[in-house]
């Protein structure tokens, strides 16, 4: 028996006999369950069957025996008759698939009060008692059965007999279905439930057709009050996406196509949005333009203009979002602008086109897909944004904040939250669809493998002036904003008492000398340690799942590949707010009952950041010539060996990127997490929002500053640790890279 099969069998066996089958009240890693190994809540599956009348689990040990029996008599492909291996494989697939699906099915079918559905009570044999959420044992068993099923599929000859590929696909597929697709489907279901929790289309219609959502007057376009929340959200998102795309393009053009002196500083800005915790921009805007803000104070002092509240509402939120998300668009568009081949622009010029004509008719159309992409990113960031509207929104309500108050606030209207989430989801998917449609037929691959020499054409004067005119104030304001927010951390009360102080840091991060060593007495330590712990757990998992998905998408072929790719990228199009709500609905009840735990937060981090890992992986893989995989295969290596010995070393930079991104994004994310934290699992961003809501800006800003420092240190540390050994990849891969399989 091969190692793979032994491991699969052992996983199932261990899951059935050694691990607690059900989820524990306390942490698995506290290992208190070892003391009460046979207890009703702690017992593994076999003891649950024997002692606690969980008779329905009996099928699982039976399936384990069946699998062991099949593996004990493997079919020798070389000697057996044609088809024997295939039918043996079929049986293995059957055992594995039934095992994995049965664990899930019994979990859904039997809840704490016995059968979950009336129809089952009538038809199925009576059972005594019920069960709670599944735990470590169930997880191992499912994992083992998936491995067995994948082995069978490979034995049947699919995936060229490579079970590394089939196992990766099944595992990643199962995870993505469970933690991306299922929660979203669950929300859809929730929207149809009426007050008595029975299905009704009318309930959905009632919630959809509220004037609070769709009320529309002309004044809505400049921030009037009393407008539908849905319109507010949509209008804000369109403005934000247009603005960030325009600003991002201008900045990208300056950085790549001009001799502007501040280019280096501008490039640095691309890092900002990733390491900036959500409220920093909003808070800084309040310090600047708020009622007690610097600008208003000055205007009143100098010109007697009374202080106004214009910043609260559409203008303020839009401004904050522009500052927060323009760097994201900038980051996307730098790559796009650099991707426009200078040769094409030189060709245009040699055909006597002016600079403006070259820009308008050659460069800009080539950038169109990238612009659509940047627009999409801006749109989705805006509708998902929770931090800025909650700080600056005032009476200007958006969907994200409404959803939050529906879940957390006094209304406690889950159905409303579900329907609002659905609307957000429709907006997002519609934008996603539009972007795909807009770019589908225009896949301009302008970077050819051949040496692409030539100088980028200089910008037309008009464009260059506009760009510089936009960039300088933007740069200046950003510096002011960040400077202010940093300064704010060191003054007593912003706007009233500007005495310099460290008291905010002391309040959050004081360390006292206790009798048994250091005591982290500061109020923020708890959430900071939580955040670090969750982020550190999520980052490597994100990288692994992301790279595996990228490998499956870019390097293998199977039916349903497009659907698989769409699923892995789907969570990119789902606003964080929606993800948060969806996770509550999906994982609040057995069989997967993990709300309030750290696990749900880690899972949320992983699948929120997955699309970036996948895209990064695909991009990195496209740099590695496919002939390297093929060379490895012809030399006798299987998929796993090729992945480990050839691809992984070459993808090191991409892995580091995914690790850093996963870590840093996890530390600053808010919109999804806000719904998932509990007192025990409070994280940095949720702690900060608590302070903001209380008007305790000093601590909030001080904490943000600490986070930024930690993230910068982490980025530098990882880069230093992993290093970036330059590989002479060009000479080996480049010659054939651009040549498709011809001949």
């Amino acid at each position, binding site marked *: 028996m091969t190692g793979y099969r032994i491991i699969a069998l052992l996983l199932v066996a261990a899951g059935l006999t050694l691990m607690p089958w059900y989820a524990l009240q306390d942490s698995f890693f506290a290992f208190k369950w070892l003391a009460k190994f046979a207890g009703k809540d702690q017992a593994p599956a076999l003891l649950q069957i024997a002692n606690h009348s969980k008779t329905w689990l009996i099928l699982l040990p039976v399936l384990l025996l069946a699998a062991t029996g099949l593996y004990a008599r493997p079919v020798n492909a070389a000697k057996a008759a044609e088809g024997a291996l295939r039918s043996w494989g079929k049986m293995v697939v059957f055992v594995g698939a039934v095992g994995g699906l049965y664990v899930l099915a019994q979990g859904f079918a039997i809840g704490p009060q016995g059968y979950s559905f009336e129809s089952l009570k009538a038809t199925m044999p009576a059972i005594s008692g019920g069960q709670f959420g599944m735990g470590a044992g169930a997880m191992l068993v499912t994992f083992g059965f998936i491995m067995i099923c994948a082995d069978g599929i490979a034995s049947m*000859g699919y995936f*060229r*007999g*490579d079970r590394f590929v089939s196992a990766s696909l099944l595992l990643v597929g199962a995870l993505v279905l469970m933690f991306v697709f299922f929660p979203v489907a669950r929300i859809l279901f929730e929207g149809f439930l009426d007050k008595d929790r029975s299905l009704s289309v009318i309930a959905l219609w009632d919630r959809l057709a509220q004037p609070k959502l769709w009320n529309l007057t002309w004044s809505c376009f400049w921030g009037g009050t009393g407008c539908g929340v849905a319109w507010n959200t949509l209008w804000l998102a369109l403005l934000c996406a247009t603005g960030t795309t325009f600003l991002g393009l201008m900045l990208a053009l300056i950085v790549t196509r001009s001799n502007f002196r501040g280019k280096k500083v501008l490039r640095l800005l691309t890092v900002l949005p990733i390491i900036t915790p959500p409220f920093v921009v909003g808070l800084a805007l309040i310090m600047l333009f708020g009622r007690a803000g610097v600008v208003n104070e000055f205007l009143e002092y100098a010109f007697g203009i009374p202080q106004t509240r214009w910043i609260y509402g559409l203008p303020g939120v839009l401004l904050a979002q522009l500052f927060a998300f323009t760097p994201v668009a900038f980051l996307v568009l730098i790559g796009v602008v650099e991707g426009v081949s200078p040769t094409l622009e030189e060709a245009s010029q040699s055909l006597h086109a002016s600079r403006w004509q070259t820009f308008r008719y050659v460069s800009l159309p080539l950038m169109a897909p990238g612009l659509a992409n940047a627009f999409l990113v801006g749109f989705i960031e805006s509708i998902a944004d929770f931090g800025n509207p909650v700080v600056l929104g005032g009476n200007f309500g958006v969907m994200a904040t409404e959803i939050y108050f529906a879940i957390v606030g006094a209304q406690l209207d889950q159905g409303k939250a579900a329907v609002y989430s659905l609307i957000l989801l429709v907006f997002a998917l519609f934008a996603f669809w539009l972007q795909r449609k807009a770019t589908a037929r225009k896949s301009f691959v302008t970077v050819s493998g051949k040496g692409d020499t030539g100088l980028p054409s200089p910008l037309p004067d008009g464009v260059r002036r506009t760009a510089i005119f936009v960039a300088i104030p933007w740069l200046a304001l950003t510096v002011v904003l960040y400077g202010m927010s940093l300064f704010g951390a060191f003054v007593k009360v912003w706007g009233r008492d500007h005495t310099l102080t460290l008291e905010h840091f002391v309040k959050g991060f004081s360390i006292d000398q206790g009798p048994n060593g250091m005591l982290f007495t500061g109020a923020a330590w708890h959430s900071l340690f939580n955040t670090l712990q969750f982020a550190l757990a999520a980052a490597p998992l994100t990288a692994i799942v992301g790279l595996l998905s990228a490998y499956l998408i870019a390097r293998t072929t199977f039916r349903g590949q497009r659907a698989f790719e769409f699923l892995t990228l789907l969570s990119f199009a789902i606003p964080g707010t929606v993800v948060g709500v969806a996770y509550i609905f999906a994982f609040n009840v057995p069989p997967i009952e993990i709300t309030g735990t750290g696990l749900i937060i880690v899972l949320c981090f992983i699948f929120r950041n997955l699309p970036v890992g996948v895209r990064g992986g695909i991009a990195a893989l496209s740099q590695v*010539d496919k*002939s*390297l995989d*093929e*060379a*490895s*295969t*012809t*030399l*006798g*290596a*299987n998929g796993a*060996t090729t992945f480990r*010995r*050839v691809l992984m*070393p*070459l993808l090191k930079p991409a892995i580091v990127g995914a690790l850093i991104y996963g870590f840093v994004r996890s530390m600053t994310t808010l919109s999804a997490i806000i719904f998932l934290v509990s007192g025990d699992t409070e994280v940095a961003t949720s702690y900060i929002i608590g302070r903001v809501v209380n008007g305790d800006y000093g601590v909030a800003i001080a904490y943000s500053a600490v986070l930024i420092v930690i993230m910068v240190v982490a980025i530098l540390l990882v880069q230093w640790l992993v290093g970036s050994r330059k*590989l*002479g*990849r*060009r*000479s*080996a*891969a*480049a*010659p*054939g*890279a651009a*040549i498709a*399989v*011809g*001949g």
Partner: protein
Amino acid sequence: MNHPTQAPVSKGTLEFRNVVKDYGTGEPAVKGISFRIEDGDLVTLLGPSGCGKTTTLRMIAGLELPTKGQILLGGKDVTEKSASQRNVSLVFQSYALFPHMSVMENVCYGPTVQGMKKPQAEAKANDVLKLIGLTGYETRLPSELSGGQQQRVAIARALVLEPAVLLFDEPLSNLDTKLRRHVREEIRELQQRLAITCVYVTHDREEAMAVSDHIIVMNKGGIAEAGSPNQLYFQPHTAFVADFLSEANVVDAHIALRADGGADVALADAKFAVAADAVAANATKAALRPDVFSLTQREGDDVSVAATVSKAAFVGKGIELVASTGAGDLFVFLPKARLTVKPGDAIRLWFSSSEVRLIV
């Protein structure tokens, strides 16, 4: 399927039986080809780009699986075997050396992933590196080698597994012109020394003729003709091969078959007879290589055709003419000649009727 019992086939024999590869995008890439390559031969798949030669090579390697048909290696059916299960090695066009591994690690990769212990693998690798003349380069990274050296590493990496069949995918295309002749001689020499079956893909007819025992000329997913370089060059059967291998002039001619299999031919004002072995079945056209002509009658020249020079160019090795005749334009190469004619001149082109092939 029902095959008569055969004598044991040696391990390097490769056979294709009605192999089809259809990607499902219009025309199949390979439309039902059959051939047999004997142990120890070097056979070239030659053809223009898009003819299916690389697809065929990748099917031999197991990187593509055929849609229909059978592939036999050493007499055993390997049609369904994946690349890692076939005793076949491929030298990639791009070499596909692992850039993060040294020369030694690259060469050892195959043996170690198949479970050989490191010391044995290194001993084997050393043997092969010695054979190929790369001793002393073991610790270099591929990026620190010249193009020719990289290629040798690629060959060493393929050879170390002692494959039954060694495949080359356009191995010279990334080398500069001067190096090409040298490397192709080396490949041929090595192949003959090891007596290993090789399949070689190229679109360069000179390269193909220089290295091969046999050439399989492919066109539009099928086999146009197969044979030794001599046969294909001097006695083509189809217009495609005549044109592709020797740039022969393929012109319409009046052909009257004789009872002995030969034919009487009228080509513009030239009338002559050809022997039976120069007539392909159902022949309708005459093929004349550019180098068979002369402006004056040489020994053996027995026919001439009247022509008018329409283009003339000196190319160093000789002169190239385009001459219009009653049967159409002829492309003529006169070796070691100097430019003595100019467009508009009336000339007679002499040739030997034994050089004419009647083809389909």
